[in-house]
């Protein structure tokens, strides 16, 4: 077993990183903030997958690499595996985590959450809460993209949240 730190250290660091980029460095430029947060994740994913695959033979195909992300990689980072993997066999993979750790502790301001009950899809409160969640997801999306890119698989990764803390990551492999 390697060294450990308390989980709250990682949580605090991520929360503050997202807040710094969204509220201070690129306030009102959420597009730019998102790209930076994703880039930080990419860096981390790239380095982690380098370390976790050091003593493994090369993956022979995309599916094998994706399975590595779902099992070994996810277990190292989140202490659990991805719960469900789907693919259309044409380069798109959906990785579903039913209890994504970085969303599990996330609370949404109740006044914002109640905004969802107003049945108005354009409700400002709801979209603000959704935006805060999505800002936090650029980091793990970057991690997955960085990890796969280190395995020689260029791709685009996006995240979808339907029911907190469940989360799906959609990986589209570039031909």
């Amino acid at each position, binding site marked *: 077993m390697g*060294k*450990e*730190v308390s989980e709250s250290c990682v949580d605090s660091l991520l929360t503050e990183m997202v807040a*710094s980029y969204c509220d201070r*460095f690129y306030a009102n430029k959420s597009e730019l903030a998102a790209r930076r947060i994703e880039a*930080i994740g990419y*860096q981390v994913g790239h380095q*982690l997958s380098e370390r976790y695959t050091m003593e493994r033979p090369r993956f022979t195909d995309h599916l094998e690499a994706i399975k590595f992300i779902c099992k070994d990689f996810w277990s190292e980072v989140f202490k659990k595996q991805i719960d469900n993997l789907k693919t259309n066999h044409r380069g798109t993979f959906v990785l579903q985590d039913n209890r994504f750790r970085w969303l599990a502790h996330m609370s949404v301001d109740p006044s914002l959450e109640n905004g969802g009950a107003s049945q108005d899809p354009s409700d400002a409160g709801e979209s603000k809460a959704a935006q805060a969640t999505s800002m936090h997801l650029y980091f793990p999306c970057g991690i997955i993209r960085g990890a796969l890119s280190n395995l020689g698989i260029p791709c685009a990764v996006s995240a979808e949240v339907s029911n907190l803390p469940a989360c799906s990551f959609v990986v589209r492999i570039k031909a």
Partner: protein
Amino acid sequence: MPPVAPRSGDAIFASVERVNAELFTLTYGAIVRQLLTDLEEVEEVNKQLDQMGYNIGIRMIDEFLAKSGVSRCVDFKGTAEVIAKVGFKMFVGVTAFVTNWDADGTCCSIVFEDNPLVEFVELPDTCQGLNYCNILSGIIRGALEMVSMKTEVTWTRDMLRGDDAFELQVKLVKQIPEEYPYKDDE
């Protein structure tokens, strides 16, 4: 519920949820790297890391007080000991010690060698002015401010710059008297 008795840093660290330090180390490294790209000036990166630490510190103190069961430290001396013995241990699992007290007990050093922030890190020549671990000094400053102690925290030794240990000088600037939000007769 009766108040929790003070617990040792080791006991708390053993009981909290922990994660692989690699993730923490690499994430911090990636943040510093991105900040260097985005902010360009090393001095500005130092400042922003300190600010991020401060923001984390003012929130972390609640978790610290809740989990450690530490109640009131009688003086700054006791406070510094608690940071080194309990604080460092319960969050990052490392041991630090307090030394170099000045005569009036308002300035001391926290010294440690193990530091999960710097694993795999080497500073390139272009970053010599960088206080890589500045988030840590910010955290201490922020946390202490929440318990009414205004401090200045500066790095006096840094292993990334070739020193034999990390040393943070913590200077008590002033103790802010606590103001209660209620009146006597309420």
